[in-house]
């Protein structure tokens, strides 16, 4: 309240021309609305600016052919809502179960209009404070020592109305189409305006520039009616099922690859678009040539005077004239509205379409400016899902939690458990957590151990990139070591040129789990929080520095890591050895025996039995334990004839042999495909 008063007084001082909010969000797309939801839930003073009259204006136009390629799975066979989010790539996070995308569409690949409708509902049902028809055209800073970050953000809209905020969340997406300039580029149609009616392409020969999903989507639409389609791009095609990156070419759009490889006239070419030139002949046909030939010439002089590649190389691939050339080169972030003082710089190399940000999503140039949503994808470009709804809905929540701690003294939410729950809490999360799964290797669950390892604190979905700053960023203390739980694909498994279907690609045995290829949980153990330096010097392609110990839970075909022997047991052994304790569960009877024969008790007895919560167990269970040789039955013991006390192992084996039960009955199945 004090803060609000302070803030409003500031407003008064600086004049009525500024409308003040603690948080300003630019853009009411999925990320903006997601951020608004968390701000609203936390009761923060915020506003969302949206240039259009409704949320999700990008989706109102794109994708042009209206089919979203984010999956919307109706059924998973599970009712676990958290788990189901792993296969729901369109919903935003909220407590409202009405706002699940599967309630909006039954299509596996839903229509973009549905997304627009969904976003509208999300904003209205949750009563998010969105100011529509407000295009922010300029952002600048006002220095003020009292401000949270040493400055206020001053925003100006198209009507010259001004807004002032302490914290700016940029969720504007990447919406400025990428264009290339080469001689003749004026003949090129853009993806944003090209006709989506296949009839318009009947009997035409089409050249498409670009090799992303929009390019293939465009090709897919007209594949059946064109003479042929050629696609040109600098890089070779990257198939998402080979790279495990959803931003690469998805199978749903790859019809042209099929026809190319089956020699059905369509084709793919590699070449630098910067070297390209297009000349139009008298009939209106477009000829491809090279910039090189055009140097020192005037295009207007006419087609006849221009050298075409085929004049010298008569089998030049794109010698056939085209009727249309379509540019599908993607989009970039709109850098234009930010004052130079904000130092919003484009990234380098293949992330130049995104602004430069730190792993905590804060702009590298300006403190207090956070980039959310698609525009924040530079953090995990071509790696994880941070550029897509099913990824940034989690990173947005992470940013919100960082801000809650930084500005409102609300530490990162955590739960404290007794150490006996350690294995369980990890198993629970790796089996259902959607944030860990979607934002694999980017978001991590953190377990902070308490002194003497009797209890631990569980933090969910913390950005791995700022692990070193954990104490400062979360307000939690990591004094006695920590576990970091992330999901990983096998190293060397993913890649544009990798064969991801090779034989024996899956590991079946827990002891070879580190060679797992498919997404699987990995647990890093650090005795101390890694330092900045260690984070910087971490091995290339590693999300984290070298740990003190590491555990891989073996990949699972069903992504169900609850098998007692293959998944839970090795994990327990790993945790036990990190903590140097015994994490087994014991029946009350065993604890009773230990209480009278040992001065110390294992954690499960200490925290369970001694705390009056002993596991008595049904007679059947105890019988099973006796048969397994893990519990001694004293009922039938005669007083004098003592059995050797160490017959446990033997008796177990004996019992197994007697009952003809192999230790791992599925072993032969597992090994059947060996070699």
């Amino acid at each position: 309240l004090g803060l609000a008063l302070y803030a409003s007084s500031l407003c008064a001082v600086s004049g009525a021309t500024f409308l003040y909010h603690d948080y300003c969000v630019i853009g009411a797309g999925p990320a903006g609305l997601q951020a608004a939801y968390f701000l609203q839930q936390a009761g923060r003073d915020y506003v969302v600016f949206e240039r259009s009259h409704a949320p999700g204006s990008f989706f109102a136009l794109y994708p042009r052919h209206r089919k979203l390629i984010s999956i919307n799975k109706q059924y998973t066979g599970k009712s676990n809502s958290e788990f189901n989010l792993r296969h729901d790539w369109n919903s935003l996070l909220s407590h409202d179960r009405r706002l699940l995308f599967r309630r909006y569409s039954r299509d596996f690949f839903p229509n973009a209009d549905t997304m627009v409708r969904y976003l509208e509902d999300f904003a209205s049902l949750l009563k998010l404070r969105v100011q529509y028809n407000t295009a922010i055209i300029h952002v600048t800073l006002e220095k003020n020592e009292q401000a949270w970050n040493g400055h206020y953000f001053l925003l100006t809209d198209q009507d010259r109305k001004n807004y002032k905020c302490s914290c700016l969340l940029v969720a504007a997406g990447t919406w400025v189409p990428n264009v290339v300039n080469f001689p003749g580029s004026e003949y090129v149609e853009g993806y944003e305006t090209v006709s989506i009616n296949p009839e318009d392409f009947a009997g035409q020969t089409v050249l498409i520039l670009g090799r992303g999903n929009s390019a293939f989507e465009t090709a897919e639409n007209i594949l059946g009616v064109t003479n042929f389609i050629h696609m040109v791009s600098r890089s070779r095609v990257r198939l998402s099922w080979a790279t495990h990156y959803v931003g690469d070419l998805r199978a749903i759009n790859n019809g042209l690859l099929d026809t190319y490889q089956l020699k059905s006239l369509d084709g793919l070419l590699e070449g630098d678009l910067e070297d390209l030139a297009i000349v139009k002949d008298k009939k209106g046909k477009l000829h491809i040539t090279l910039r090189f030939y055009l140097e020192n010439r005037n295009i207007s002089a006419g087609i006849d005077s221009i050298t075409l590649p085929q004049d010298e190389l008569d089998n030049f691939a794109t010698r056939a004239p085209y009727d249309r050339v379509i540019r599908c080169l993607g989009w970039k972030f709109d850098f234009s509205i930010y004052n130079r003082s904000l130092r919003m710089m484009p990234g380098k190399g293949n992330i130049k379409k995104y602004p430069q940000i730190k792993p905590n999503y804060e702009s590298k140039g300006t403190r207090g400016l956070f980039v959310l949503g698609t525009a924040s994808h530079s953090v995990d470009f071509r790696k994880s899902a941070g550029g897509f709804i099913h990824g940034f809905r989690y990173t947005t929540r992470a940013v919100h939690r960082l801000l809650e701690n930084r500005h409102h003294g609300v530490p990162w939410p955590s739960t404290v458990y007794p150490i006996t729950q350690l294995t369980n809490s990890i198993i629970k999360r790796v089996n259902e957590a959607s944030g860990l799964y979607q934002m694999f290797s980017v978001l991590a669950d953190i377990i902070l151990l308490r002194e003497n390892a009797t209890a631990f604190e569980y933090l969910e979905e913390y950005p791995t990139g700022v692990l070193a700053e954990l104490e400062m960023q979360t307000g939690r203390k990591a004094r006695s070591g920590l576990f970091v739980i992330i999901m990983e694909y096998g190293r060397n498994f993913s890649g544009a040129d990798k064969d991801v279907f090779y034989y024996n690609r899956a590991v079946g045995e827990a002891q070879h789990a580190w060679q797992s290829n498919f997404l699987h949980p990995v647990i890093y153990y650090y005795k101390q929080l890694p330092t900045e330096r260690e984070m910087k010097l971490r091995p290339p392609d590693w999300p984290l520095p070298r740990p003190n110990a590491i555990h891989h839970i073996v990949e699972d075909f069903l992504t169900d890591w609850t098998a007692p022997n293959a998944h839970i047991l090795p994990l327990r052994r790993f945790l036990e050895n990190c903590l140097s304790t015994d994490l087994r569960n014991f029946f009350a009877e065993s604890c009773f025996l230990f209480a009278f024969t040992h001065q110390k008790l294992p954690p499960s007895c200490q925290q369970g039995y001694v705390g009056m919560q002993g596991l008595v167990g049904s007679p059947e269970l105890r019988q099973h334990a006796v048969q397994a040789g893990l519990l001694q039955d004293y009922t039938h013991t005669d007083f004098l004839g003592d059995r050797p006390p160490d017959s446990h192992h033997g008796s177990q084996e004996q019992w197994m042999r007697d009952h003809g039960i192999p230790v791992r009955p599925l072993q032969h199945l597992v090994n059947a495909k060996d070699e």
Partner: protein
Amino acid sequence: MPAQKDRWVSSLVFLLFCASSIPKCGSASLQQEPSPQHYFSSLETGKTSLAFFTPSVSPGAQPFLEQIESSAEALQDYGVSVVKVNCPKEDASRYCGKENALRKAFLFRGNRLIREFPTDALFDVNSIVANVLFALLFNEVKYVETLADLENIENVLKGKSNMVFAYVPATGTAEHRAVMEAAFVYGTIHQFVLTTEAALLKATSHDDPDVSSAWLLFCHCQQATEPAQPCRRTALAQPLTLLNIHRHLKLMGAPLVTEVAEDPEKISTVHLQLGLPLVFILSQKETYEADRRTAEFVAWQLLGKAGVALLSRDLVELNVLQRSNVALKTPDEGMPIQYLVLEDTDEVITLVEDKNKVKQIQEDEQEEEDEDEKENNNQDIQDDQVVEAVSRDKKRELPLEQILVLTEENFHSSLSEAARTVVLFYASWEAVSLAVLRSYCEVAAQLKGTPGVLLSRVNCWDWPGLCSQENVTQFPTIRIYKEGQQSVTYGGMWGTEELSSFILLSQVSCPLKLATMDEAEGYLRGEFPPELSSHHHTSLLGVFSSATSKAREAFEEAGNILSGHVRMGMYFEDDALALSQKYSVAPPALLLARGGGRSVEGITLSKHSVQDMVQMIRYELLDIFPEITVPNLPQYLQLGKPFLILFSAGDISQVESKEMLKLAKGRTQQSFVACWLNLKKTPVGYGILRTYFSTTPPLPVLLWVNLHAGGQVFKFPSEQSISEMNILSWLEKLQAGLEIPSSTLSEEDWKPPLPAYDFLQMMEPALPELSPHPGDTPAQHPPRSPGGDTAGGDSATREEPSRESTAEEGGAPGRGLRGTAPRLAARDKQGRRHSEL
């Protein structure tokens, strides 16, 4: 073994016979010749004879004669006859006439004199045979005195034939004889060289030889081609006897490495016939060349000690471990061939030289591997009794029909349907949850038909949102939801009885407000309320005058906390004073009606804080002399006192009970927990006794157990009767430190039962970037070229080249046997993989 030895000895003898030009059988003896004339006339050409001339009567030569006579038989084998020529008295010829000639022996071939020996050189049979043969084999056996002589001979022999070089400390010795005898047989095959020069021995031997004993070297000059290099030598390790030399030469003549392509059981070589073991190097096509070099290297090392054979596994069907690389066949009949996995050639040599040592190695390895295996096997064998029990029970279908399944959809509506809803929050993959679910099923069966109670469950694996909304962070959790009231979380043992009791007690409010004196009396008798009449636990009644509202509030609050665990009532009507006075206390007071006896005890409430009251109630509920059971131990453990515990095979006798009770009651402020344990009811008590005494002592047995401090266990002397007096005096002695503890509780920490998979270590070789010092990795692990990787990136393909290279290196002498394929195949066990289905 002895039989075999006989066999080859006889073959040697036979050989000697053949070698000697006179195959003459029967007993040989000293020939007597009447006169020199007669003797000389009888000499045949080519026939060798040793003659000595003796006067008819010459007693002085008698000992010499004996030796000569006994050497006759030996010399006969070499075709030398020994003749004693009698010199007639009057004979003064060359041999008989001179005095000194009579002290000599003469060796003739035909009638040509080869050598004359002074009789003092012929002191015994050995010297006679040695000297005679030395003389006869003058051309076959070269005597050298200097190293130069030896080298000359060696150089001449190179590439032509082998040399046997013998050193004897003196001529005429047994060793000398043995060498000469061998030379007699082998002299035409090998060049024999003899010396008595100790200096020469020293020059030819590497280490300081013992010049007092003979020495024999076989020099492999035939194979030597390098003129500058001395011939390779193999010393005879055994003493120089004819047998040993013969064996040695036989072995040197055998092929270095025998290549075999049949069942090793059927193979027999010179070595086996000579009682030496045969070592098989098991080879495969891929590694044949390397294995051959290894075999040759080993063979040189073992020359004279064992034979080496190279066995191609590809040609022979062997029913042995793929990773076995060496086999050992001993000459002992009936001994099976041993197949071994050895690491380097040294082990093969040790194998032959010291069998016991090898056995040790093998056993060690076996153990090591067993351990490895055990370790591996154990590591993935479940050692959590709860998890294992639950997974063994998973096929059993649980009678869950009594338990309502709650979901996110029906949770809130279901709660409002029954007066009380018991909810078990669990996770269907979690073992402890599932164990509790089993007990919960039993509870459901017991409580079937109880009005107003609904048993239900929520699987948090299906409905995580519901569980977190209900603030359930741990599994299992049991809550009782009552309409319009705060839910109560169960905090007791996860057992059927305890759970049932909790649910039953939760039916009535806690504390239960009693309206009339009758109700209060009935409550104390356990008859009211009727729902709890079957419940025989201690009843607690708080009696308050209306004025003492603060105490009452605290009591009510304590009731909330103890709800479900304690039967609590309260009475604060006008006649409360009358009720309390009945039990001689004044309100606020607590009336306790203990389970069995129903005697009512009154306690004045002095502390009015909730926490104190809860603690006081809990304490008051404890028995004075309880029977310790698995479920109730924790309550007594919390007191933090030592236990005086009587282990009894069944119920304790009245006398013991009385005495113990007296003892327990005797001190108001007890410093220990007096209790007993019924082994029939709590059989795990046997486990305790066995830990203390290793066997079960005679029962009953009274023990003092310092559970919390020191952990000493003292046993009350069994000869004393269990009486208050005896125990008290024992305790005094005990406290005074006059008793010796029978046992002490283990102080051990609860460490991880087994190691984990060390993935970090496994990853390091494959992922050089993981190495702790990123700076120096490139040198150690050259980075793999990005293009060179197969899509699999499988370590199997990566390790291929290194395997080949080790195989090649295996050829260099002294290299490990690791180069052989089976070994490697066994070592580099690849990660077992399967495609996903």
